[in-house]
């Protein structure tokens, strides 16, 4: 059960912070692009495209998803096509080490 070396590996952690109203849509997009899991929490925030609407919506949503590189690329494209132009959304990616790498890709 602990032949962990074999299934250690590296995946991309993509963090997306967006106005709360987008939660459902973002998760749908992430899933469509091939992500197999995500973690969502509540947040407040401020950014270049600030407008007061997220207060009325009850804040921002902060989504983390660990995905393979190709999935990350697909999610980026979807963000650029459907979310970045018109919504308050920030996203960033970095590499993380996981065990049981197969679960995330």
């Amino acid at each position, binding site marked *: 059960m602990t032949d962990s070396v074999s299934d250690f590996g590296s995946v991309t952690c993509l963090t997306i912070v967006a*106005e709360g*109203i*987008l939660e459902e*849509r973002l998760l749908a997009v992430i899933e469509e692009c091939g992500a197999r899991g995500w973690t969502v929490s*509540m947040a*407040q925030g401020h950014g270049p495209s600030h*407008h*007061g*609407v997220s*207060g*009325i*919506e*009850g*804040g921002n949503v902060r989504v983390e998803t660990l995905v393979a590189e190709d999935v990350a690329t697909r999610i980026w494209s979807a963000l650029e096509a459907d979310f970045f*132009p*018109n*919504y308050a959304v920030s996203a960033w990616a970095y590499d993380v080490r996981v065990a049981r790498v197969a679960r995330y890709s």
Partner: protein
Amino acid sequence: MDLQASLELALINLTSPPVLAFVLGLVAVSLRTDLRLPDAVYQATSMYLLLAIGIKGGVALREASPSEIAWPLVATLVLGVVIPIGAFALLRVLTPLGRIDRGAMAAHYGSTSLVTFTAAIVFLEASSIAFEGYVATLLTVLEIPGIVVGLLLARGLRGGGMGETLREVVFGRSVLLLVGGLAIGFLTGPVGYARVEPFFGDLFAGVLTLFLLELGMLTGRQLSAVRQAGPGLVVFAIAFPLVAGFAGVIGGTLAGMEVGGAMILGVLCASASYIAAPAAVRLALPEAKPSITLASALGMTFPFNLIIGIPLYLLMAEVVASWWG
């Protein structure tokens, strides 16, 4: 009603805890005080308000006879279509806003403000003026068409993804809680309601007070956008509620409602949504600038209605009733 009585009612409204809490929120922002209802509690509070108003409306609906409520429903539906069209047209005259932004505004002003509505209810109850219990039903009915018409005005009928968007609006949380509440109230009736009244009824004004404290702060943070709004938008944000409120009062009176009820229909028409509409418009018209709609709906129209409008629409309703009577 003479002037003095009107002023007294205006004062009752101005010094009601919810309105004062709204002002306190404005003050807090201007003092740069770090005060915020945590998001989790804010969300639960707005769920509570929607569900409570729905349930109350459902209980009242059950007690109203179909014949009694038919005309008010028709009036409400007509107003729900006419008002956003009027807003869309008037904005074209008064402001340089494009089609998308005007459609967004139309959706906000075509829909209604739950909080203004409940402030009006609190006001009528404090003034011991009777009104039909089913007005909460009218609130629910008026919630949706305005948004739909506004979106259609912005996008036209051909717009791709319109179906999906409408689904998001109609099955969104606001509508679900309102309509679900209506159904619960209707099915449970006064007997079942009595058991949850201490929660959904008695606490309502207090919870609303807390919610308005937060809305006051949100509005306070919006004030810079208000200052940037052109004069046309300012005129619209004040004048349109008067026009729409008057239309609502007339509609309600024609439909046979009492003075209090006609006044409430006026308030529903005059008020602009900032719970259901902003969400729907963000999803469906992302190019629309929220700073404009919020500055207008929350930054100007809402406080105007809350402080001046509410007693004014009552005056209107009394005047109109005296024409007919």
